């Protein structure tokens, strides 16, 4: 076995960690604040990917700009979805909440299939960064972008939650909505904000997806399954945990791809097995909030 090949594939897998972390942290933020698992989160990523793709392929707009625009439009879409739909659902029981976001996910997914066909597309974007070469390891520039943007976005999110005024309000609204209301926090607006932030991160993540993965209506589902595995590993509601979980998952995927026969085609299987293992050993995840069963 060629060691450098293994290092290479592991490092490439790590680049994906930045992407996974971004997707997972949006999901876990939404859950942490509103206690809803947004099954449609993956579809927002998918829409962002399509937007970045079309902006590049049809108008020649740089993927960097495309990413940012996707982030903004997904943020706007989140506002519409929240006030038009999710706000109502929050008042119903958990059973209905799961069904509602699931229904939304199915709707958006199939709309994408209708509008853009289920063909797989690949965005042939130029390298935004030069390829990194050291020893015998080659990391293509765009993968580096994914790593940097993904981690950068993640750090911004953490800083926002820790230091900004809204971040404090969000955390208060998530820990104790009743207390937050008494403290003058507009809890409804905070719920909406968590979805907007989730949407923005999803949109940008979508741009990253278009850059290094493929563009396809089901790409959201691929990622969301991984996001669930990450959130299970890290614990629901923990944003810092999402990064650690993402790194763990991508490393495990890299190892499986290299050392297990046909490991590369295991795809969802790795995520699923991780979820099962975590549920078996430590259901709250490594850093998660208290489980209420």
């Amino acid at each position, binding site marked *: 076995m060629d060691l450098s090949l293994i290092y290479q594939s592991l490092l490439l897998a790590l680049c994906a960690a930045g992407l996974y972390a971004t997707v997972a942290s949006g999901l876990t933020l939404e859950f942490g604040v509103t206690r809803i*698992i947004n099954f449609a989160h993956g579809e927002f990523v998918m829409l962002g990917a399509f937007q970045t793709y079309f902006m590049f392929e049809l108008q020649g707009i740089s993927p960097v700009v495309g990413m940012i625009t996707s982030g903004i439009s997904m943020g706007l879409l989140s506002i519409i979805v929240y006030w038009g*739909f999710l706000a*109502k*659902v929050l008042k*119903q*029981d*958990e*059973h*209905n909440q*799961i*069904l*509602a976001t*699931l*229904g*939304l*996910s*199915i*709707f*958006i*997914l*199939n*709309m994408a*299939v*209708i509008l853009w*066909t*289920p063909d797989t597309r690949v965005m042939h974007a130029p390298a935004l960064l030069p390829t990194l070469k050291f020893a015998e390891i080659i990391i293509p520039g765009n993968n580096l972008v994914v790593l940097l943007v993904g981690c950068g976005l993640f750090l911004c999110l953490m800083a926002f939650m820790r230091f900004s005024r809204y971040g404090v309000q969000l955390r208060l609204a998530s820990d104790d909505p009743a207390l937050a209301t008494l403290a003058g926090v507009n809890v409804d607006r905070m719920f909406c904000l968590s979805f907007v932030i989730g949407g923005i991160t999803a949109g940008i993540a979508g741009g990253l997806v278009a850059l290094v993965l493929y563009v396809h209506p089901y790409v959201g*589902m691929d990622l969301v*399954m991984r996001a*669930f595995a990450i959130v*299970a590993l890290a614990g629901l509601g923990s944003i810092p945990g999402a990064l650690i979980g993402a790194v763990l998952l991508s490393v495990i995927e890299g190892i499986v791809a290299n050392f297990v026969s*046909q490991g590369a*085609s*295991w*795809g*969802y*299987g790795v*995520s*699923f*097995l991780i*979820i*099962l293992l975590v*549920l*078996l050993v430590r*259901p709250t995840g490594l850093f998660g909030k208290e*489980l*209420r*069963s």
Partner: protein
Amino acid sequence: MKSLALKKVAVYFVVIAVCSFIVLANDAFSMQLTIGVLITVILALAWDILSRTGQVTLGSAAFFGLGAYGMGLLSPLLGTFGAWVGMLAICGLVAMLLGLLTLRLRKMYFAIATLGLALSLQVLVLVFRDWTGGSSGISPPVLLDADPQLQLLAITGFVILAMFVSDYFLSDRMRPALFLVRTNPELASASGIPVVRTRILIFTVSGMLAGIAGALYGGLYGYVVPTDVFTIHWSVIPLAIVILGGMDSTLGPILGAVMIKTIEEIARFYIGGVGYQVTYGAIIVLFVLFLPGGVLGLIKELFKQSVKGRI
């Protein structure tokens, strides 16, 4: 409640009567259509039974596929009857194991785990292609020599079985207990109900029913490929059917299945491809928001209003 019992018997009567009529009419297209509807009825009843304990499963496709593949893999080894028993055993076992892991926890872990199961089984089949035939598929034993009339009769029989099971879990003893488990597990436990054990039992029954649906599907033509049965479609359809038709009932899923089939045929015609499933998403969203009781709930509400009006 004599009138309630009468209503339930009437439903069985109607189902048997309609299916018998279609068998006698011997029209290939209507028989094929009805078989399709009946298979989804079994799947939908399996979903609804589970939902009565408050669990949302996205794993119907997993058990559906296990049913078809179970028959295909086991019948060369155990014969057709042995394969049925083995298939049910496998579905039950998988359900029990997954249930033991996830049913102590928040509901969304269960939903995610069942989704993961469905997606992963497809991968499993493709990866272990020497054992499962991979993407070239598998040949479950053909049901009743591919005679549509006999198939329709047999499947009707299984639907009646599924209806019995559903009605059992709606009986005076089971229904309140399941609803307590769903709405307030703490209160249920304080009333002497073993909550986790109940959830696992129901999940096992539900998994086996879904497996039966899959086995019947596989037996229609004697050939299935992984993308036929392990696809998300079979997890979404029971959801849409039950939400449309009406949860917590036996009649609701039946009504829902008929309506979904109609909508599906129309949508396939206008939209085509796979995208017609957008209608499922739209239905789920609209009904959860505005009509959570489904069509059956609407009918009951209208009936109540008209009765009040008379008095």
